[in-house]
């Protein structure tokens, strides 16, 4: 996935002089995950560069660049470090068009590795998509494969909206996949039905897709057929795809890494009951983190969604 993202950046830097890439250590170092490796050498320090260590500064200057016609792609080094930039996101990046009634736009992509499972320090393992999904004017997306990462990032850079692009760092290098060369796009806002099933629908995104797939294999052994929807876009949510699936299966589970309360799971459940109440055979359920801080590595297995946690919920809901 790291290569696919690098490739997408490379393509957009190559074809659009207005694209600039910056952030902490993205230049010389090529990013702590090597996602921007080689780009500074190729495009020069004016287009790919290290910024001072300040996230409000990162987002705020990107707002300025964007209203002046550039298309900044900035990197938050880890998900836990986006918060100093929160005010610039919620007060400006997501609002400038609305505030100025269309006079100014902010085509910004905020790239951010997120999620757990890499034995990291505190603040390095969070998945707080729900907070960002609640911010009007912002789009929030997350790929689950290298192919999606490339196509979605190109779409994100070409979009005139501000987009939070969440990268599942746990699978940065875990999934091997041939990715088509050259430019292609994947539309933002559309979910992807990864596999068809009849008994229960599972909605997930990012690194959770792989975990759900493992659970699906186990469920199948028990004779349960699961339909898997990769949400891809956390806001806006593809209600239609969810509605269609849950009308068919009558059961739905959302699998996420973030805290439970006020999380993505509740939102998906709400959509399911609004769209398919009379089809529901069990209450829409959520497999999620607890309402706690992600534990340090030795405790992280308690918190994380392994395939068994998902299977447990599948069995529970099917028996309901």
């Amino acid at each position, binding site marked *: 996935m790291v290569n696919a993202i690098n490739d997408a950046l490379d393509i957009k830097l190559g074809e659009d002089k207005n694209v600039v890439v910056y952030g902490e250590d993205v230049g010389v170092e090529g990013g702590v995950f090597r996602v921007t490796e080689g780009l500074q050498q190729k495009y020069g320090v004016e287009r790919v560069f290290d910024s001072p260590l300040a996230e*409000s500064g990162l987002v705020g*200057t990107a*707002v*300025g660049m964007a*209203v*002046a016609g*550039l298309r900044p792609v900035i990197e938050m080094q880890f998900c836990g470090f986006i918060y100093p930039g929160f005010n610039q996101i919620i007060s*400006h990046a997501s609002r400038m068009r609305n505030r100025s009634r269309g006079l100014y736009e902010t085509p910004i992509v905020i790239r951010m590795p997120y999620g757990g499972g890499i034995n990291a320090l505190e603040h390095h393992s969070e998945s707080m998509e729900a907070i960002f999904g609640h911010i009007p004017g912002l789009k929030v997306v997350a790929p689950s494969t290298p192919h999606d990462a490339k196509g979605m990032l190109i779409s994100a850079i070409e979009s005139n909206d501000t987009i939070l692009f969440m990268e599942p760092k746990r699978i940065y290098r875990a999934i091997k996949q041939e990715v088509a060369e050259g430019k292609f796009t994947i539309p933002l806002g559309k979910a992807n039905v990864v596999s068809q099933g009849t008994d229960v629908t599972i909605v997930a995104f990012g690194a959770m897709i792989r975990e759900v797939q493992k659970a699906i294999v186990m469920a199948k052994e028990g004779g349960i057929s699961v339909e898997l929807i990769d949400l891809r876009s956390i806001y806006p949510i593809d209600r239609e795809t969810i509605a269609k699936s849950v009308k068919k299966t009558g059961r739905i589970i959302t699998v996420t890494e973030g805290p439970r309360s006020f999380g993505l799971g509740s939102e998906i459940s709400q959509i399911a009951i609004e769209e398919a109440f009379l089809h529901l055979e069990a209450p829409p359920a959520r497999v999620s983190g607890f309402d706690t801080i992600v534990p340090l590595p030795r405790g992280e297995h308690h918190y994380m969604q392994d395939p068994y946690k998902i299977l447990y919920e599948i069995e529970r809901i099917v028996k309901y």
Partner: protein
Amino acid sequence: MFNEYNPLKKTIFQIIDDNGKVINKAWMPDISDDRLIKAYKDMLFARTADLQIVSYQRQGRIYTYPPNYGQEAISGATGAIIGENDWMVPAFREMGAMLAKGVTLKELFLYYMGYEDGSKFKNAKFTLPISVPIASQLLHAAGIGYAVKYNKEQKVVFGFVGDGGTSEGDFHEAVNFAGVWKVPVIFIIQNNQYGISTPTRVQTASDSLAIKSVAYGVKGIKVDGNDFFAMYKAIQESVKVCLEGEGPVLIEALTYRKGAHTTSDDPTKYRTREEEEAWDIKDPLKRLKGYLKSKKLWSDAEEEKIIPQFKEEIDRQFIEAENYGPYPKEDVFKYLYAEMPDDLKEQEQQYERFLQWKAAKVK
């Protein structure tokens, strides 16, 4: 100038005294009589409008408004220099400079009457909307500065903030980024000595606000912000610095907010009559007028004649704004995204269905 008036010397850059007499000839800017008279008129117009808006507000015809009263020289000097293609990044107390960029009073009225449409400037190019979250806009100025430099444009970015705003982290990050990137941004601190009720000594223990430039390795200067000539000259020199690629510059403009913080504020709670009177003497319009009168460029008679014309024009635009009409419901939804997501479309339709139901219900 930035050497002579290095903020470490703790001086303040002044050109005229309280009566408008030139006390610092060496730095007197070269400015034609016509432009000078125009600048004075613009300041007078801004003041007239400002006072009138406060009275509209008292009549309940407009919502909360933050007066510029007493700070007009800063916007006046900026307005006299800022180019059509320069960028203006306001806080919310820069009426004169915004008018100079081409923002209309009507637009400002619409804004304070509660229409976002008032932030869609029809004639003012390169002018950002008013920014409410304190100091946050300075980062936009730094980012715009980057774009200007990146595109090799001959432009300057003006970024405004108040004294209170210098306490925010964004102030620090903005001037610091601009310093590292060496971008053409003129940061102007309108030090009106209060952030709402809070005096500047509660904001910082530093000797001045200009001195903070040292922390970012950028040029800085403390200017008498009620002295039109000093402001003019300081900005002119800053523009030069920026265009030569030596920017940014941090200007502290010392002034006094003669009015309330906003129309919901009562300054008698936190400052004395004596203090206010001491600053009346330094009123920026009075001082510039003193100079103009001494040069026979302006007279009380002219002023008496022009003010009613101003008032009429202000009223005309105000009434236009008042008659702007209802706020269409589409406008709530339309501008969030380049294309409206289905979800928002659905929410708009739901709202429409509700309105129809309600119309039937209450009729």
